[in-house]
């Protein structure tokens, strides 16, 4: 076999041609004979009980299929981690976008009027909308204490450090909700027949999550539920859990009507009702020595989970584990808490808690630098984790990462030092102030702790009758390049051409459960399994005497054809096998949190216009170590796309809430960056390799979301000398802070200096 001819090269995207010609089939492009359209009647109040539902007589209701909670054959919940979220509210309302009734009609346009013609009367109950209200507990809206989940991570004895500290530095940081804003709205088509059961086709990330939810909801056995992923127009975590809800709704309407039903949200409904990034608040209290070394600290990380538990516990876990950043903490106590409010449940969004707690850490690091009197560069350098040291969960860093070297390279390519000096001079005059800021961070790849062990993912590789090879996984493509990269891996492992390998459309009747497509796990975890399943095909052919150790692509094809002709089928399976030396304690939250981490240093250059108070990002350097880069074009695409979303998170994307409901649920008033808003994003890779991933790859998808916001806000502070600890940071916030400062006529003094 030749050595690595396919991995590392920019082969064409498997589904690229369909996408550029408009032939790729997304869920809204599907039409089934006799299909109805479905719509959702939602609650109008944040909390209360349903008193009465009235159907106004202006609508010909006999033409509509109407589903309520009473029509649910199984359990009225969206099964996920806990089962607390109802599929349809029957009595209690806990947020203002709670689904209450479902309607279906052959004419899509008839539905809007019908939805408006349903009026619901309530007995309202007091509702809560902030983490602080939730913590106060004056109103209990979930469980016994409004708390979905807590974690405590303890390393060493942090209580001992305060008396030894030369500096104790405190800070509080917060981040807002962020809408995923995939350009394709959520949607599902469902069809039912008594013999085959229910089939749904949809825009989704995790076929087996939907499968599990439908089994419980429809009270059907596994073989009578089929979930097919259609081409998916972006997801970013936003199609991780909510698709189960929409699939459930479409399925209920299909079961009741006996006809296929399509539900595709419009933008306003998608933005208001589906999940967003958890708002967060992080408090740091850090002890430092005179020379700027972290001695220990306390970190309190709190997220707003919205009305139901959904994924909050896992988002919280990742956020808590990433809260200490890429630094060495001799001792630390991290308390993490997810609380309930009466907003629609918050959910997964690229980074999954990491961007929130890393924003806090990296802002705090700049604050520490100021108090201690070191540069942002030096304070980081002195505290970087080194190989052999342990993380906050006491995981030994085995990777030979040299963060100092990463920092040096980022500084040199961004011309950090020169710019710092230039800006100091330029900022003396003029109404435009410039600044440059750094963020250093890490992101764990794969499920946290014992997660991968519980998932126990399976993948298959099939030798086909025509001699080609086909991959069978439930991992989904939604832009990241799953299909392409997994095919590269299989082709590389078997020494075939990229064109010889195809990948099945994720369909639960065809593909095994290779786990959800989340957590930057696809290339590292699933990819590794694809590699070994692919090798299994060669093994079988070899054992049957049909193929030797070295062969040409044509010889492989012939052997494969002959084997399938003789035996009917050629398949090889691989299942996740946890490395034997991995230790994780779910109780104490200690041990190997992730099989591997990706590492990065990002540098942002900004200018702030003091007449409009708007911020422009002028240059952005994204340097990372993600293991082996399997596909340079896709990898750069992941980084640039993630940085763009991070810039939006920092400066553009503000959800305006009123009574738990998003008010600006349109693309015209919730603003994401356009091509005119973004700087050149310069991407650099270091490649260290990784024993856990296929051909040395690690996770890449989420990492770029973590760094931009703190790097930008650090740069803004550098430009203005004013501290901002909350994002999104809008021009009005900058205006307020600058006016407040000039009123006070003084600069703020760092909080506690011993």
């Amino acid at each position, binding site marked *: 076999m030749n050595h690595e001819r396919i991995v590392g090269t*920019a082969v*064409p*995207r498997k*589904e*690229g*041609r*369909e*996408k*550029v*010609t*408009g*032939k*790729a*089939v*997304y869920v*809204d*492009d599907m039409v089934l004979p006799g299909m109805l359209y479905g719509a959702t009647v939602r609650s109008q109040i944040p909390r209360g009980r349903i008193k009465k539902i009235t159907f106004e007589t202006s609508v010909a209701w006999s033409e509509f299929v109407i589903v309520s909670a009473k029509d649910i054959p199984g359990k009225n919940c969206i099964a996920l981690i806990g089962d607390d979220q109802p599929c349809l509210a029957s009595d209690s309302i806990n947020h203002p976008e709670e689904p209450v009734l479902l309607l279906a009609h052959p004419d899509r346009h008839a539905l809007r009027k019908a939805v408006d013609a349903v009026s619901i009367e309530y007995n309202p109950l007091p509702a809560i909308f902030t983490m602080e209200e939730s913590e106060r507990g004056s109103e209990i809206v979930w469980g016994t204490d409004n708390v979905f989940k807590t974690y405590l991570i303890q390393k060493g004895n942090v209580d001992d450090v305060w008396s030894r500290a030369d500096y104790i530095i405190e800070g509080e940081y917060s981040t807002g909700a962020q809408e*995923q*804003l*995939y*350009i*394709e*709205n959520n949607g599902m088509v469902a069809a039912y027949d008594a013999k085959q059961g229910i089939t749904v086709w949809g825009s989704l990330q995790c076929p087996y999550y939907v499968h599990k939810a439908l089994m419980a909801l429809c009270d059907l056995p596994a073989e009578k539920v089929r979930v097919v992923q259609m*081409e*998916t*127009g*972006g*997801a*970013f975590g936003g199609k991780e859990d909510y698709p189960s809800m929409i699939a459930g709704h479409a399925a209920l309407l299909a079961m009741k009507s006996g006809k296929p039903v399509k539900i595709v949200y*419009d*933008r306003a409904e998608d933005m208001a009702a589906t999940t967003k990034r958890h708002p967060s608040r992080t408090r740091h209290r850090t002890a430092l020595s005179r020379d700027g070394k972290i001695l220990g600290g306390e970190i309190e990380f709190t997220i707003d989970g919205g009305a139901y538990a959904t994924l909050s516990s896992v988002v919280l876990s990742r956020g808590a584990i990433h809260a200490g950043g890429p630094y060495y903490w001799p001792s630390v106590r991290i308390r993490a808490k997810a609380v309930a409010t009466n907003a629609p449940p918050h959910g997964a969004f690229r980074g999954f808690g990491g961007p929130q707690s890393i924003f806090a850490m990296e802002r705090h690091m700049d604050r520490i630098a100021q108090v201690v009197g070191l540069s942002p560069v030096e304070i980081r350098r002195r505290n970087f984790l080194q190989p052999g040291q342990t993380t906050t969960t006491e995981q030994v860093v085995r990777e030979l990462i040299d963060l100092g070297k990463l920092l040096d390279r980022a500084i040199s390519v961004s011309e950090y030092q020169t710019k710092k000096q230039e800006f100091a001079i330029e900022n003396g005059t003029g109404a435009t102030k410039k600044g440059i800021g750094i963020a250093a961070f890490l992101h764990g790849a794969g499920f946290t702790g014992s997660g991968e062990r519980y998932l126990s993912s399976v993948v298959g590789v099939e030798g086909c009758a025509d001699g080609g090879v086909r991959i069978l996984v439930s991992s989904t493509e*939604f*832009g*990241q*390049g799953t299909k392409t990269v997994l095919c590269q891996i299989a082709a590389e492992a078997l020494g075939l051409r990229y064109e010889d390998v195809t990948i099945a459309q994720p369909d639960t009747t065809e593909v095994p459960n290779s786990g959800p497509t989340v957590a930057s796990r696809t290339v590292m975890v699933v990819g590794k399994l694809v590699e070994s399943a692919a090798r299994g095909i060669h093994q079988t052919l070899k054992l049957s005497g049909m193929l030797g150790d070295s062969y040409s692509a044509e010889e492989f094809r012939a052997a494969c054809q002959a084997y399938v002709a003789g035996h009917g089928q050629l398949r090889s399976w691989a299942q996740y096998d946890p490395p034997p030396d991995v230790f994780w304690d779910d109780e104490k939250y200690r041990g190997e949190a992730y099989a591997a981490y990706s590492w990065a240093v990002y540098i942002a250059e900004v200018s702030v216009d003091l007449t409009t108070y708007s911020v422009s990002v002028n240059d952005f350097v994204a340097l990372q170590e993600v293991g082996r880069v399997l596909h340079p*074009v*896709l990898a*750069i*695409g992941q980084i*640039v*796309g*993630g*940085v*763009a*979303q991070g810039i939006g998170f920092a400066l553009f994307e503000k959800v305006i809430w009123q009574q738990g409901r998003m008010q600006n649920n*349109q*693309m*015209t008033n919730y603003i*994401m*960056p*356009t*091509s*005119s*808003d*973004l700087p*050149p*994003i310069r991407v650099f890779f270091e490649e260290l390799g990784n024993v856990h991933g296929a051909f040395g790859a690690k996770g890449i998808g989420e990492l770029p979301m973590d760094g931009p916001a703190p790097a930008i806000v650090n740069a803004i502070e550098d430009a203005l000398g004013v501290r901002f600890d909350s994002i999104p940071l809008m021009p009005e916030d900058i205006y307020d802070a600058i006016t407040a400062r000039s009123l006070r006529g003084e600069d703020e003094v760092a909080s506690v200096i011993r």
Partner: protein
Amino acid sequence: MKKELVELKINGRTHELAIEPSALLLDVLRQDLGLTGSKRGCDESSCGACTVLVDGVAMMSCTLLAASCQEQEITTVEGVSQHGSLAAIQKAYGDWGGAQCGFCTPGFIMTVKSLMAENPDPSEAEVRAALSSNLCRCTGYSQMYAAIKSAIAAERNAMVEAK
């Protein structure tokens, strides 16, 4: 509502259709004609996923009355590739990472087609300005700039060769 007969010229073919006067071009393309390449991302002229060319001008079909486009030449993404071979811009979007999830791609391709027709040698600033009517959440746009550059170069080479 009463339907009216209209004639629409789409991708070089004339279609006679009975549609409601209020029917939007995007609905007619997607539902009546099964041309599902043009996408719906918003319904309010803000995402550009529905962009088509009307007499060569990039227009958002989600807010355009179909009946108002009679007598005009409508081009959708389905009309961009000729005889099964990709147009330079399609190939370049594929090769250079211009398309990730692909949902915004048809709209961008139409916008870029009109840019290239109007301005055969756009600067990066002009490209950025032209693309700002369309939203892409996946790519951060930069690989699109590379794609456009390469498509322009490819077209120029093809022209030189043809001469």
